[in-house]
């Protein structure tokens, strides 16, 4: 394990900037998001708790060009851009890093998704443990520790004046090896780090028992009355899904220009929208309660059945950003317990 004084962080990031496009928490666009680091400002160490826009945006952007087309005579010419340069995300939280590990499963499945996977491969994640979790956070209930992560390449822990830096993956360890200006952490540093991790864990105040949740949901699937009650105050906007670090659903759309050219893009989509599944003849999820049910069950029932993991990391964005304070933890707590028949 290595360490660095917090005020030295800019020098460290500058060093990494030589080989990577460095992204770090930023408020340049009004709300916190991962954005290209400006080469000096490390003020985020003070204000940053988590981003509003989840870092999945770095790997799965809300508007991603798939390829371009250009009309040539009677036909078309297609061109695709090469993958982008290597990037390094500094400061990703353990919940969001876990979220990427979770959605990796779907993008690796059956037909590998070249766009997602190449970005993923080209991106180095440097985690930063939480010291001030929000009151909406419930990561510990989802198997995530706010202070540590195995889902990043390098993990940093804030021990007050210093950042402890640990290599997690081979890629991360290699970078750490190459990085100059770091001090070796002592055993005392190690125990201070352990203390910080433990403290972060203690600061999580929201808890959810997910035991048997998939089974409960499966049994309640046809309980229309329950779902109508749950859905009543939902306004079916896309806030919770778009800003969820594990929501990966997308749409594909073309944009064209006057000169017969254009591009195909993919953009985030949401199962909260009626148009998402609407077909000319009918819509399997026309009703609000059906869409709310889809959102909840996809995360806590279908995804676990497919990939053996719940598609939620307890980041709490859906709770704190919801315009009507629709709280997923309350919903899950109110799923009727299985009745023995």
């Amino acid at each position, binding site marked *: 394990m290595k360490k660095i004084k917090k005020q030295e962080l800019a020098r460290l990031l500058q060093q990494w900037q030589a080989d990577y496009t460095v992204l770090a928490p930023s408020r340049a666009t009004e709300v916190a998001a991962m954005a290209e680091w400006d080469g000096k400002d490390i003020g985020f160490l003070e204000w940053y708790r988590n981003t509003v826009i989840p870092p999945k945006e770095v790997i799965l952007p809300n508007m991603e060009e798939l390829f371009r087309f250009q009309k040539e005579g009677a036909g*078309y010419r*297609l061109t695709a851009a090469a993958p982008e340069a290597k990037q390094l995300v500094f400061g990703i939280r353990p919940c969001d890093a876990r979220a990427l590990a979770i959605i990796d499963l*779907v993008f690796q499945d059956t037909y590998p*998704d070249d766009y997602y996977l190449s970005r993923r491969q080209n991106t180095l994640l440097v985690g930063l443990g939480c010291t001030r979790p929000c009151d909406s956070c419930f990561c510990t209930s989802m198997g995530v520790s706010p202070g540590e992560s195995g889902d990043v390449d390098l993990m940093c822990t804030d021990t007050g004046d210093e950042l402890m830096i640990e290599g997690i993956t081979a890629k991360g360890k290699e970078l750490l090896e190459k990085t100059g200006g770091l001090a070796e952490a002592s055993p005392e540093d190690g125990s201070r780090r352990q203390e910080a991790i433990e403290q972060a864990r203690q600061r999580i105040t929201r808890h959810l028992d997910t035991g048997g949740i998939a089974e409960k949901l499966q049994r309640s699937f046809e309980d229309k009355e329950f779902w109508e009650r749950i859905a009543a105050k939902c306004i079916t906007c896309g806030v919770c899904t778009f800003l969820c670090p594990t929501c990966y659903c997308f749409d594909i759309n073309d944009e*064209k220009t006057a000169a*017969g050219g254009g591009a195909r893009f993919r953009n985030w989509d949401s199962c909260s929208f009626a148009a998402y599944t609407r*077909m000319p003849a009918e819509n*399997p999820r026309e009703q609000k309660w*059906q869409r709310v049910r889809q959102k909840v069950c996809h995360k806590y029932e279908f995804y676990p059945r497919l990939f053996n993991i719940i598609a939620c990391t307890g980041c709490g964005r859906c709770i704190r950003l919801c315009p009507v304070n629709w709280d997923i933890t309350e919903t899950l707590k109110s799923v009727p317990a299985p009745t023995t028949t």
Partner: protein
Amino acid sequence: MAITDISHRQKFLADGNAYLPHIAVIEKIIDETPDTRTFHFNFKDEKLRREFTFASGQFGEYSVFGVGEATFCISSSPTRPDHLEFCVKRVGSVTNALHRLGEGAEIGFRGPFGNSFPLDYLKGRNLVFVAGGIGLAPLRSLIWNAIDNRQDYGKIDIIYGARSAADLCFKYDLDAWEKDATVNMTTTIDRQDKAWSGRVGFVPAVLEQVGPSAAGAAAIVCGPPVMIRFTFPVLEKLGFSPEQMITTLEKRMKCGIGKCGRCNIGDIYVCRDGPVFSFAQIKGFISGEY
């Protein structure tokens, strides 16, 4: 930024980027009904044309560049590989754009995607095809496939209906099957119609009248959702087990490869795990939401 020309890639999905279409040329357009057309197409690239293979029941994603993509099954049979076909009803922006294209126009094609009709299970059985409207499109791939391998199958019953005589698709096929002594063809329309001298009645009711035996048979059903919902109970009454009833589901799709999420039903993605399912697989969810 490096730009690569990908117009002439010769790799199919298995080892290529599944989002990039291959360019295909529309060779022929057939008006099926006032709002439905069949397009014959072929890949622009010679090598792709030779090497492309698919199975009955699989689908593709078809692009009109600048408008978008839509999902259609391949409606021709792999036993007749000189060209490929798909059938389009005019309902939205992409389908309208396809209808505006003429012969010689270039489109994009991604596929083939999805599973296919279970030929191993069907071989040696009597086949009962039940279709409504444009729902015949996916089945006709299998029907021609079976006819071209006639010795592999038992009796073939086809029960096909549409709202009116004008809405019957693939009339040239209906004629051919009518004339084929090895096929028992029944065509019906929903309501009496001056231009029609044949049978009148809804598909499920006509199916009951025809009453094919369930013994050693399999029923393959495709049509509007409401027809499918009423057809399964009739088949049950005729003695078909849920495993003997096969259908192909239509859902809104974008990616075709089990990622974008909209065709998700429980833990399946219709595009990746379907679109062909037995009633045994889907009866759990067909009663409720789907």
